[in-house]
């Protein structure tokens, strides 16, 4: 019996200990809770940012949403993709090589510090420096002196880019390595935001509690639950907040967020999950949002693979014509995409009618083209995709369509997740084609052509290489004006139809919604909701 008694003691003690730890967190009854909405605040399902909140270190959507609310860069774009000056008075150039930026005066950071030309130049130099490991540092690569602060290998030779010069408090100039006629469009990317002096004292702490110059100022970040920002009264830009603040709430699943919108516990959902898509328009009524935006999904042939090595482009044209885009977008994809008719989405400058039938479903011609081009080696193609992104359904449908139309066997090559998928792409291990996606960084056709199909482009994982097309792009970059550059790239796009570096499938649409508590929810050109315009009732 002695044994039994002491066992009771031990067991009892452990139970008490467990109970104590469990209650420790739960007893804070008086603490302010995240529950319920604050009056005048708009809540939206935006998950935990992957990285600290530093403008040049964020390119995924969650972080970008928060960064965009906290920081304002020189300029922005309207829904049509036209430039709207925000912090800049003007951005001008004579020769597309030297750009002069004039800032609006009187702008301040949230801590009261003035936003000056120096705030921009210092920030950009810091972002570009290889030592600081900023993910978007390559965005500064056009600027003269970038290679000194960001060498391919080894330590930087300088900590300032020679191309950036401060003229006075509100003026600075940017010298580029070469002409880039569309450089001002790049400046609309959040990476080009300025930083206050406090940043340099402790970048790590700043990333948790950023101080920006945007329409909202940072309030709090409860990790994995909520980020809250408050409208900033002294904001001088055109996109001043029409609400009192934003709550970015983290949801584990799209379905959970959707349930909260329907029941009124959440104001806005950015994307309705596949299970709720068939009924969200009924559930949300006027609150349902369905808008196209500047993003495209393609099938990208790997030109090193057995299937597509030295392939006749006619074969790829044939495969493209074998895909019944209309039916697949309507059925399998529930109208979340619009069939593609070119390599660029309609929202970008320079999108054109290509006057071709390569993107139209025509099984007979598809078959004929593939035969004409010498057929597909092994009569089989693979489409690589990641299973964690909801792609399986449409890949299966596309394969079905190709198989039925042409008799070429087509199977999905599933990778368990995005990381594995990317690794196979980077290491040139794609069996024949992969699923490619691209969202506009800036609304110009160059972004969809040069970054994807230039021989040296980082994202050209299909390793498409065509000297003639590279030369045409170089020609476009030398253009005197933006219009000329856009025209030159339109010529490139026409060439792309003959060479088929990818099979464009469809453009994205945003399928979101909002509850009855808010109004005036609009979508910008790259599919983000314009949170500053949202009004509460």
């Amino acid at each position, binding site marked *: 019996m002695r044994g039994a008694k002491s066992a009771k003691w031990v067991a009892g003690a452990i139970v008490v200990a467990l109970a104590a730890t469990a209650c420790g967190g739960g007893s804070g009854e008086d603490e302010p*809770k995240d529950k319920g909405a604050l009056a005048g605040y708009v809540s939206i399902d935006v998950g935990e940012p992957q990285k600290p909140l530093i403008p040049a270190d964020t390119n995924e959507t969650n972080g970008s949403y928060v960064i965009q609310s906290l920081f304002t860069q020189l300029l922005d774009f309207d829904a049509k993709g036209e430039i709207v000056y925000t912090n800049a008075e003007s951005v001008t150039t004579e020769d597309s090589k030297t750009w002069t930026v004039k800032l609006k005066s009187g702008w301040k950071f949230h801590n009261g510090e003035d936003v000056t030309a120096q705030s921009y130049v210092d920030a950009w130099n810091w972002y570009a420096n290889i030592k600081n490991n900023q993910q978007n540092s390559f965005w500064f690569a056009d600027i003269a002196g970038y290679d000194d602060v960001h060498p391919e290998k080894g330590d930087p030779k300088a900590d300032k880019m020679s191309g950036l010069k401060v003229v006075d408090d509100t003026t600075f100039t940017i010298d580029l390595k070469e002409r880039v006629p569309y450089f001002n469009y790049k400046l609309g990317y959040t990476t080009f935001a300025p930083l206050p002096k406090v940043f340099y004292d402790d970048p790590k702490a700043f990333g948790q509690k950023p101080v920006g110059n945007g329409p909202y100022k940072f309030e709090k970040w409860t990790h994995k639950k909520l980020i809250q920002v408050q409208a900033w009264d002294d904001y001088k830009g055109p996109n001043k907040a029409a609400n009192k603040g934003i709550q970015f709430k983290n949801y584990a699943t799209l379905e959970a967020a959707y349930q909260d919108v329907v029941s009124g516990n959440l104001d806005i959902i950015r994307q309705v999950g596949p299970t709720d898509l068939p009924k969200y328009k009924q559930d949300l009524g006027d609150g349902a949002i369905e808008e196209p935006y500047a993003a495209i999904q393609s099938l990208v042939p790997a030109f090193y693979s057995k299937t597509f090595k030295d392939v006749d482009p006619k074969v790829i044209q044939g495969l493209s014509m074998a895909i019944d885009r209309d039916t697949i977008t309507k059925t399998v994809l529930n109208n979340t995409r619009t069939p593609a008719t070119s390599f660029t989405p309609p929202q970008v400058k320079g999108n054109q009618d290509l006057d071709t039938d390569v993107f139209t479903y025509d099984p007979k011609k598809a078959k004929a083209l593939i035969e004409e081009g010498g057929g597909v080696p092994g009569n089989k193609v693979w489409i690589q995709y990641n299973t964690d992104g909801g792609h399986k359904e449409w890949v299966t449908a596309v394969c079905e369509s190709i198989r039925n139309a042409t008799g070429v066997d087509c199977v999905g090559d599933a990778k368990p997740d995005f990381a*594995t998928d990317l690794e196979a792409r980077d290491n040139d291990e794609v069996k024949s084609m992969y699923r490619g996606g691209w969202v506009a960084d800036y609304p110009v056709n160059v972004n969809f052509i040069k970054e994807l199909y230039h021989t040296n482009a980082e994202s050209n994982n299909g390793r498409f290489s065509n000297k003639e097309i590279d030369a045409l792009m170089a020609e476009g970059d030398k253009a005197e004006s933006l219009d000329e550059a856009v025209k030159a790239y339109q010529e490139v796009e026409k060439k792309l139809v003959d060479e088929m570096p990818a099979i464009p499938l469809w453009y994205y649409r945003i399928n979101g919604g909002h509850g009855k508590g808010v109004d005036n929810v609009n979508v910008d050109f790259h599919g983000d909701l314009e949170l500053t315009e949202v009004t509460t009732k």
Partner: protein
Amino acid sequence: MGRYVARRLLQMIPVFIGSTLLIFLMMYALPGDPVRALMGDQAFDPAVVESIRHDLGLDLPIWQQYLNYLGGLLQGDFGTTIGSQRPVADIIAEAFPVTIRLTLFAFVFLVIVGISLGVIAGLRPDSVRDRGLLTLTLVLISMPSFVLGYLMQYLFAFQLGVTTPTVQDSENFGDLLLPAIVLASLSLAYVARLTRTSMAENLRADYMRTAVAKGLPRSRIVGVHLMRNSMIPVVTFLGTDIGNLMTGAIVTEGIFNVQGVGDAIYEALFRREGATVVGIASLIVIVYLVASLLVDLLYAVLDPRIRYA
């Protein structure tokens, strides 16, 4: 007794080291580089990827990475995450209290409701209420937790409006009620069935007849003689189930939007955050070890014939 406990606790050390090593190696074996994955679909600069990998020590050989990790662990440092650069300890400290609360809630519900149901049915085997319980548990066992989860959400949040569909505040026990019930329901069926069968069997045992013959009051016969002997298989099940409740809650956590351990480990795995996965998984291993020790000790409480030296 004390020596027995001490020995068991000491045994946990090699198990802990072994399990961290195994999980560490498994994470390493997974394809996909976490730093590269951070860059996503869009353009990026390989030099930056290399530089980040170097700063985090991810370019070192695997054994050196493991030693570094273990060295940090001994000093109480769980490492930092790759993406957010936050200490893994913070992430654990956020996720575990939520899950422990949910688990404890589910566990209490499970013990009280499950055992009572089992007792009620077990005392009258093959009666109507026994058959009723067997049918109910059969339904619970065969229903996947996401079906039950959505059903409960629909009924209680949308039709009756008693609660919000998702957990708004994971420190609020009222909010956690629904997910806890869903989480517990599968195990509830097992516990009820185990108790019922064990009870029904022991009812026919010799010592029961003796107890009745001695003229003991019925409450004592059932409460002490029958219950104590019938609880051993149930306690074994409950012990291992604590671990299951903690780790197996991914689906339930997703439906009700509870940011607990299941959610944290899934996300870490998805992003190849090795240090986070190893940290959380090792803690769960410890939970399992402690729970099984508790179960072994409870045997001695329930059955005096069992002794540990």
